[in-house]
């Protein structure tokens, strides 16, 4: 296991307490808690419908919790809208890829980069030198990001025309282009074969090290999570049933019953 780079922040990175989400009676997530360690890769696993995607929607501000708190670097973000959460340094990808399909790969990333490099409306309308410098800078950074993700060759192609694997990586590129502190990856290897998954594993580690990211990963694929994560939480019917390092989770009897399979199958 690689040693996590230490990020020096005064207050804890992400503290979640008692997070609960109900949909008309149905409990999607119940009493979830997390204290995220900077620089770690944190895995959340569980069967479909266990509340993993709900958790991500809550973390990224796309859904309001029924109760509980989310604190980011000591600031209460529980009811902040998604775009504020993103600006505060939380980026995400989606289980079912969500790209700006008609826009080129480069523009998909530029629109994320520009959030950190704003320029006034009047400057834009008049195309002032300052505006052009900004645009140049935005384009350069977007190209760098594409290169980092191995997508430089497809920069000018419309996102929707890219092969599946490239689309997955473009989504990650767009997310890291917002210069996040925390990156949420929702089933990043869905639909990938084992070779592609192995490449993705390397990529995620590299991104974490190069960009000082802390990563939360939701996945279905148990081997991937076991391989990659420092700490794993297991959700089942919205409840946290295990929380610990991979070895501990693997041998947790509750987890084996609920998810990995009954002992009788051994």
């Amino acid at each position, binding site marked *: 296991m690689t040693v996590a780079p230490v990020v020096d922040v005064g207050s804890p990175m992400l503290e979640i307490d008692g997070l609960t989400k109900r949909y008309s009676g149905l409990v999607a997530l119940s009493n979830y808690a997390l204290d995220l360690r900077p620089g770690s890769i944190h895995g959340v696993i569980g069967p479909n419908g266990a509340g993993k995607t709900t958790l991500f929607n809550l973390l990224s501000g796309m859904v309001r919790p029924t109760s509980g708190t989310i604190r980011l670097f000591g600031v209460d973000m529980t009811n902040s809208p998604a775009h504020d959460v993103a600006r505060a340094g939380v*980026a995400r990808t989606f289980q079912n890829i969500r790209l700006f399909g*008609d826009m080129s790969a480069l523009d998909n990333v530029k629109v994320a980069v520009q959030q950190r490099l704003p320029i006034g409306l009047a400057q834009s309308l008049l*195309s002032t030198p300052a505006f052009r410098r900004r645009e140049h800078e935005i384009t350069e950074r977007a190209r760098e990001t594409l290169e980092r993700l191995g997508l430089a060759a497809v920069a*000018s192609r419309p996102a929707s025309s890219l092969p599946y694997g490239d689309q997955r990586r473009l989504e990650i590129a767009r997310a890291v*282009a917002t210069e996040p502190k925390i990156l949420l990856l929702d089933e990043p290897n869905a639909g990938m074969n084992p070779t592609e998954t192995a490449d993705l594993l390397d990529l995620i580690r590299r991104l974490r090290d190069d960009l000082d990211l802390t990563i939360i990963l939701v996945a279905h694929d148990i081997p991937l999570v076991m391989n990659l994560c420092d700490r794993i939480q297991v959700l089942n019917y919205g409840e946290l049933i295990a929380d610990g390092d991979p070895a501990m989770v693997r041998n947790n009897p509750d987890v084996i019953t609920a998810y990995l399979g009954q002992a009788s199958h051994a």
Partner: protein
Amino acid sequence: MRVLQMARPTLIVLLAASAALALLQLSGLAFWQGLAINFAIFVILVQALNLASGFTGVFSLGHIGFMAIGAYTSAILTLPLATKAEYLPNLPVWLEGVHLDMTVGPVPVGFVAATLIAGALVMVIAGLVGAVLMRLSGHFVAVATLGFLVIVRVVLFNADDITRGSRTFSNVAPYTNLWWAWGWAAIAIYMAWRLKFSGYGRAMFAQKGDRWAARSIGISILRPRLVAFVAGAFLSAVAGSLYAHFITSFSPTVFYFDLTFRVITMLVVGGMGSVSGAVIGTAIVLALAEALRRIEGATLLYGLGGILLAVFFIAVIIFRPSGILGQREIDLEQLVAWRPRRGRRRGPGSATPD
């Protein structure tokens, strides 16, 4: 030097267009001059809708309402004092003394000021209306903005003291000529173009492409929508002012659904989200409508033109749903130099499959 080189194709096109306008002016062909002014006004309206809807995917049916407000505002502001007292005797006091009918040399500065004031007023209204309506999406925003159009119409009909109600508003000075119309059209095209190829345009196209993904990278949905809505409203008001001073007499009935639908047809045919497409779509639909009008006149089959235009529109939606250009653009450089397609201008949503 580099800047000059980059601006060259634009310059060439501007010069060519000016020369064409000058020729048309000298020719004295009143019909064609009128058509050219109409064309320019429609170009502004279509760019306005392009900004508000084509860039953002939020369908506005209310922009003709902004045009109406622009037309009435500019017409009232430019009335000479003498006419005003007699023509609109019940105007509120603060409006009674206003008469932006002055000229400096050949330039009707009063007209320019009235147009800008109309634009500013409409921007304020659009800001308020937009802040409320831009939260809706899909067809609900379409119907809500249509509601705005109905509200404007009801108010115009009933505010007798200011608008003369259902009676024709005439006595408007004929300031609009080829140069004003096309000058503003050029500004509208430029505005749309600059916005599209800036961060603002990218944000607009991004939230159109995927609302959730846009929010996930820090774009608030409301802001780009509102910028587009208000900018479109400004252009609509300008078109209204130009229209008022071109046609010189009008009533609230003009600014309603038929005109709204005509503008939509032009935009959809050209390609929603394409600045150059909007101009092409305007030209095609205007030419088609004019030809059909003549056929109607000759055959006395009134209604046939409307049917054929609507059939054409449905055919476009079924067979070429993204219009002639989609969200792509025709590059001026390419147009002028007639080079092989190399540097096709790329922008948000304008990528072409390789």
